[in-house]
């Protein structure tokens, strides 16, 4: 960690978005994570995504649980709303916040410990409910804050810093999300922002639960030889299945792809996600085929990355619950709280 503040000086030619903000206006306080932590790169990718999507800071709510990953919301968009929840309980707080104010953009930041151990149940139910949010799981395979014990995502055979190999099988968050019916499932790598940023932008535009598993190496406890979540291992075993290009609403599509290799998916807000398939037979809208393909890639010891599955027409939590169209804060008080007479009317239904 650094003791000095990030200098206020900035590049005079920084781009300015339509809100008049530069990328530096989306920063938070200085990171207190270890130097070289993958999480800081994920933070930087989020900052870039918010800047490019021209997100108004006050329209953003960032939530987290406990862990190294869960500290990171402090490091981006200082002006946004924030909630640091109990360990593993971020999904229910996010669901509650979303229920009350559906018009904000929700970003949950979690880790492999927070989501796959103590918070596994919460994680699963947020997927089931299809809470409209971007859920980023910063996955490093260890408990960094408690000195590097294996987490539930550690691969069999991956060694600890002391050289001991892990024997228990991992919980694969991508598989878990897919099998629970998640509508947006991606995996990326903190060291590959070219891939990560468009995925985050697509996730922010997705209507429903957008899950992004980010391999985010722990430089202090899990970046050695023998680790399957190190920078070097991830780079040499990454298997990019899909290249994602995010085209915001009303933007001219410039990149040209060869015919048949690209699948366009129009998002709820009108933006377009262009999925450039690197493997020809891959269909990112066929859940069963995706699960098969991933099993195949995984069996070779490779790490499949990209926006692996996307289904834009799903029903989200508000759809299931048939809630009001806008945030509760905009509902007139008289409607929101019908008073004791109104309560009596309602209770009569059960008399």
């Amino acid at each position, binding site marked *: *960690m*650094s*003791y*000095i*503040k*990030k*200098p*206020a*000086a*900035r*590049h*005079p*030619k*920084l781009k300015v978005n339509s809100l008049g903000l530069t990328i*530096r206006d989306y920063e938070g306080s200085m*990171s207190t994570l*270890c*130097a*070289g*932590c*993958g999480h*800081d*790169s994920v*933070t*930087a990718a989020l900052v870039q995504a918010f800047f490019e999507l021209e997100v108004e800071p006050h329209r953003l709510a960032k939530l987290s649980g406990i862990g190294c990953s869960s500290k990171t919301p402090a490091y981006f968009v200082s002006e946004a709303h924030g909630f640091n929840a109990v360990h593993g309980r971020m999904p229910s707080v996010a669901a509650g916040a979303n229920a009350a104010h559906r018009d904000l953009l929700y970003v949950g930041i979690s880790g492999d410990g927070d989501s796959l151990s103590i918070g596994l149940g919460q994680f699963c139910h947020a997927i089931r409910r299809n809470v409209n949010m971007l859920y980023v799981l910063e996955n490093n395979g260890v408990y960094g804050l408690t000195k590097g014990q294996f987490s539930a995502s550690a691969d069999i055979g991956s060694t600890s810093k002391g050289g001991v190999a892990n024997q228990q099988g991992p919980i694969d968050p991508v598989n878990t999300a897919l099998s629970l019916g998640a509508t947006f499932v991606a995996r990326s790598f*903190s*060291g590959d*922002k070219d891939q990560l940023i468009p995925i985050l932008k697509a996730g922010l535009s997705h209507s429903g639960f957008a899950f992004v598993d980010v391999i985010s*190496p722990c*430089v*202090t406890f899990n*970046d050695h030889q023998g680790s399957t979540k190190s*920078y*070097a291992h991830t*780079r040499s075993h990454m298997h990019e299945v899909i290249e994602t290009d995010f085209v915001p609403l009303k933007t001219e599509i410039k990149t040209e792809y060869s015919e048949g290799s690209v699948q366009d998916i129009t998002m709820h807000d009108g933006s377009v996600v262009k999925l450039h398939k690197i493997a020809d037979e891959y269909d990112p809208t066929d859940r069963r085929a995706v699960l098969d393909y991933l099993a195949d890639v995984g069996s070779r010891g490779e790490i499949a990355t990209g926006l692996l599955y996307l289904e834009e027409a799903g029903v989200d939590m508000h759809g299931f619950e048939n809630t009001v169209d806008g945030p509760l804060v905009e509902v007139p008080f008289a409607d929101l709280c019908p008073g004791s007479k109104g309560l009596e009317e309602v209770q009569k239904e059960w008399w």
Partner: protein
Amino acid sequence: MHPTDTRDPQYYHRVVDCQWACPAHTNVPEYIRLIADGKYTESYMLNRESNVFPGILGRTCDRPCEPACRRTRVEDEPVAICRLKRVAADLRGEIDHLLPKAAAEKNGKKIALIGAGPASLTVANDLIPLGYHCTIFEALPKPGGLMRTNIPSFRLPVAVLEEEMDMILNMGVEVHYNHRIDSLKELLDEGDFDAYFIGTGAPKGKELNIPGRTEGSANIHIGIEWLESIHFGHIDSVGERVLVIGVGNTAMDCCRSSKRLGGKDIKVMARKSRPYFKASPWELEDAEDEEVEIIVDHSPQCFVIEDGQLRGMIFDLVEWEENEKGRLVSTKHGEIFIQADDVVLAIGQDNAFPWIERDIGIEFGEWDMPVVDRATFMTSREGVFVGGDAAWGPENIIWAVEHGHQAAISIHNYCRGLPVTDRPPYGMNLVSTKMGIHEWRYSNDYDPVLRTEMRYADLEKRLSDMKIEAELGFDVKETVREVERCLNCDIQTDFTTNLCIECDACIDVCPVTCLTITHNGEEDDLRQRLMAPADNMDQAIFASESLPQTGRIMVKDEDLCVHCGLCAERCPTAAWDMMQFDLLNPYAGHQSWPEKAITASTISV
């Protein structure tokens, strides 16, 4: 792009913009840090090594370092480098024991120095410790050249001037005052000296030959001669209404001197408009603060003389426009009479060498100037060297000092029978400033504080006496504030390619977006592919070798780096380190860098 060779001392030297811009390559950031530590004496001595006259230059330098200052790329105003130099001079302690000493034994070589200005004094400063016997011939009764005669004492107190000159003269320079050399041939023919250095400046003020000049001569003065007469007490008053013609730094000294000699209505008359003024902006401001009026677009037509007495001048009112060739041309749209009791001409200076015979092997070229080699300062006659304003016309003191250093190197070579083209190498030291995980040997915290304003002596008081110094200098509190503005550009971000794991931490944290990891390409292409485009072609971009994991390269745009060290703090493998760069300037007698230094290698991590 080929990997950058950071072991060439000139690469990191270029990053230290102030030091690069300074003709004498003074180590500015280090002397500012020494001031910050309260080590005024050490700071003074570091200054003196390269610029010889810190107290004088701390008041009078033309400050090429300040427009170059990196601070101007992230905010408007540069660090007040020059004024901090003065702080070191004002607050320093005893230095006698630190000054260079004459060699215990003379080497038997004798050097003639013509003119006792900054160039000649620097030559003496460099050569006497090596055993040379230096003899100065000076036309005036006192040393200093234009530093003495042309810079009024309200800008440069005589005590400061003399103290710093004495540091050199007291080493045992033989000086002949009131000894004008009227014939170089004669001096050469006498054959008393092994080498000759001409440092006679550009002593001839330019004339303005328009009607009335001769008739009004009693009240029309040549600026530099007039200032000299004031210095020596020959002139102690001026008329109430004074016109100063010209708008360079000498004009500023003339108008401000007029104010102190009893002038009430002082006008500086400029032919062009403000963007074309030659005077330094701060000198213009100082003059205007003293209620001098600066009038633009007035071109002198004639002097008006009535009954043998100067009454004023007529000026053409002109407008300037650029023609097709990009040259400024004027059109007259009227004329005006302006009253004046005295007129001072400050429209430039010329060199004059009537005392150098044209048949003694010294080739003369354009503008009737001797042909002088830009690197060796030798004329076409071996053993005769020229420096300072005498070489290529009026510059400023710091250039004269650098000329002196270079000429001293040449003279030292020449006297030992070595080719004068054999220049000693530049060297460098590069030492890590790391003290702990996030502790450095320098203050890396960026302070957004704005430039400290100078305080001046009370206007009425300072105008009452020529000898009252106008600028008060920074006090300790102001100094403490100003030193923190320095960005420590000499603390270099030094990259070790094979340690990098490409985690992006440095890129993510860099406040000025100057780092990028990308695939290699041609420099022009790379410059456009960075996190922010590197459009300042005067500033290098650093390119690493291929990175171990992906084969991409680390690129750094040196232009905007604020040297905060966060890249190195956030680097988990110490691939980035903050290394203090110390340029080792070559001086006479330093033919190599034996123990102290590294010329093209470094301490590896």
